[in-house]
């Protein structure tokens, strides 16, 4: 039963899969062209958040967050169970908070609708005049690079191998690298944006985002703050958008997001969009105006063709599996992705309907 598995890509998704499969007795080799965790993972905010765009997305992210909760993470992962506070600007959004609360409670997630007064008590730095909010207690924050390294280290301790080589091509039953061909029982493609180069049938597009990190202002913000308008403003697929999204880090710093745009692979800051993003942040948190920013960076979310990532066997290519296109939720869902992958390879229970993540025939 000792399957030999090759994982292409040591981003959070790849290392989570490697760790999970190695723990189940497979013999895993991970290929990484660059720095493990150095892709989208290193750029990410690290909000572990349950989102409810669709019932399946909700089940997927909720399972993802639950699996992270079960992990006993070391200090370097900077995990904080600070919860998410969805901020409602007006009555319409309070209504949305109520509907959201029903959906979250339906899944057994602890949450509570806040009045304007309770919102102010929970986060006194928010601007006056907001209408209320929704607190989702179990959401977390972590340092994605730290978490990826933790999972990788554990996989290696369990006997996995890390091979710092670029995979040049997929070949039947294996991969080709500079030193030569490597054969295995299964190849799992978890190469983030690099996926499409190896498998052109699966288009993964870079969806650029800006983040700004501030100096230390401990105690200014207590929850990850997200505007309820977020779902409206950030998730429309084609449009360029910004949303209020501020995260308290374990260091006392604030991480300010978020923006979304399709702009190719140009990582230079889009000042206009950055300005809009920061203006939005200040409009919700006026004191932010004087808080110093140390660095602004951009990252690319690996955005697949559908609303959910592609996880499972690739049709017509025996032995090839894919886990890619996690867009802005790959940190949240890395462990549940690994669970689904283990289901496909080992027949272990999946908790979610694996069919929802299979590549669509049109793409297969």
């Amino acid at each position, binding site marked *: 039963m000792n399957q030999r598995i090759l994982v292409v890509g040591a981003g959070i998704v790849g290392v989570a899969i490697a760790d999970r499969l190695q723990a189940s007795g497979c013999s895993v080799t991970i290929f990484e062209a660059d720095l493990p965790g150095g892709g989208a993972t290193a750029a990410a905010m690290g909000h572990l958040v349950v989102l409810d765009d669709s019932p399946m997305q909700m089940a997927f992210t909720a399972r993802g967050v639950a699996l992270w909760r079960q992990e006993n993470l070391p200090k370097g992962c900077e995990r904080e169970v600070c919860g998410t506070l969805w901020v409602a600007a007006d009555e319409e959004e309070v209504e949305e908070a109520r509907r959201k609360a029903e959906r979250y409670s339906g899944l057994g997630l602890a949450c509570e609708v806040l009045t304007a007064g309770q919102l102010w008590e929970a986060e006194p730095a928010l601007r006056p005049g907001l209408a209320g909010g929704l607190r989702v207690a179990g959401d977390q924050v972590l340092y994605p690079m730290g978490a990826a390294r933790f999972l990788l280290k554990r996989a290696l301790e369990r006997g996995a191998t890390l091979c710092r080589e670029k995979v040049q091509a997929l070949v039947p039953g294996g991969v080709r690298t500079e030193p030569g061909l490597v054969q295995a029982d299964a190849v799992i493609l978890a190469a983030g944006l690099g996926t499409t180069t190896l498998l052109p049938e699966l288009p993964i597009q870079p969806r650029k985002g800006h983040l*700004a990190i501030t100096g230390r202002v401990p105690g200014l913000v207590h929850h990850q703050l997200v505007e309820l308008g977020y779902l409206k403003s950030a998730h429309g697929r084609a449009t360029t958008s910004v949303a209020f999204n501020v995260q308290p880090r374990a260091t006392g710093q604030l991480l300010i997001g978020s923006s979304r745009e399709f702009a190719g692979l140009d990582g230079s800051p889009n000042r206009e969009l950055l300005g809009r993003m920061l203006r939005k942040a200040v409009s919700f948190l006026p004191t932010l105006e004087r808080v110093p*920013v140390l660095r602004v960076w951009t990252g690319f979310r690996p955005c697949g063709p559908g609303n959910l990532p592609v996880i499972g066997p690739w049709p017509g290519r025996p032995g090839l599996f894919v886990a890619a296109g996690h867009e802005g939720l790959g940190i949240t869902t890395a462990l549940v992705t690994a669970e689904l992958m283990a289901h496909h390879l080992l027949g272990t229970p999946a908790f979610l309907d694996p069919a929802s993540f299979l590549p669509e025939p049109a793409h297969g």
Partner: protein
Amino acid sequence: MVEHVDVAVVGGGPAGISAAVASAAAGKRVCLLDEGSRPGGQIWRHRLGQVPDEAQSLLTKLDAAAVKVLFRASVFDVEDRQGSWRLTLSQGERRVAITAEKLVLACGARERFLPFPGWTLPGVMGAGGGQAFLKEGLELHGERVLVAGTGPLLLPVAASVGKAGGRVLAILEQTPWRRVLGMLPVLLAHPSKALQAAQLGRSLFGVPYRPGWWVQEAYGKDFLEAVRLTDGQREEVLECRWLFCGFGLVPNGELGVALGCAGTHAGLQVNKAQESSVNGIFAAGELCGVAGVDAALAEGAIAGLAAAGVWDAASVEGHRLVKARARARSTGRQLERIFALRPELRGLPRPETIICRCEDVPYGAIDPSWGSRETKLCTRAGMGPCQGRVCGPILIYQFGHTPDTVRIPYKTTPVGQLIAEEP
């Protein structure tokens, strides 16, 4: 409102002032920007009324020239606007934007610090840092001061200590005697430097100059109390209140690198007209490689003339500037060899010694097999407010790392000022 100028000069040290004066003399609209409160950069930082003569004539020219000078102005963003440059700067509570046809970078250099146990104690400062505070009025009231590190800078620092009423216990120069003697031909070739040296020597009469010695450890509870020094064989402990310690200079090349100018951490590359690899961006002074004030003055003038489109190497003035630059650069290279850092200094930090002062990352947290990016992402070294300006050169020296990528804001800037105007 965005002001438009022909030439924007970033940095108001000798190189920047000289560039601004030259461009303005050629009839250009010029803007000079500096983070400090007055012109002069790192060398001419004296309190008002105490500026040295050599500086005074240039400062007078700057006053007379039609140059718009902005002080306390930290340039935190520069954008390529297809044919012009847009600079954004933070000036106290204000945000200012300027567009310019040409850019002259004259951002100078900063001190190189090296870590040893105790170097983070209050009372331990840079040599140039200490000197800056002394020039600006810090008084020492007979306190015991040790000056250490490397380079010719240590001597004027010690002289400033004496002037401020401090007692210099010794000047520890890490480079050995036989290499220090290499200074003699340099001095003989530059009578003016020899004169300066002689004057310095007089004011330092009685202060032990100890080449081949360096600081091993600084002790103290809330403030520096004592220092242990060594020459590799012997050790001594000296009680002291202040340690002014610097290991030469590192060019402030970040802005240029971020704009795509070719170069290394040792300086930006420029052509004979001081133009960088990026069209329209000129660079002068220490950020092209450390070579001192004479190089800065000559290169600044060349860059200023070139940015104004009137640089003529064949003119009389052109000849003079080219010669002055070549001479100063060659001296700079000689000094660099003489004061090269000795390998023993790499062995000073202990596992618990802080490497990154902003994030308190200890030496022992860094795996020597890691590259720069891995070190940063795994330990937070370089993630603090100084963005690796202090620990970057240390990591380059200790582990052979490469400099980190530079991102906006180039200087820590409040959120409110980073917000672009409404379109």
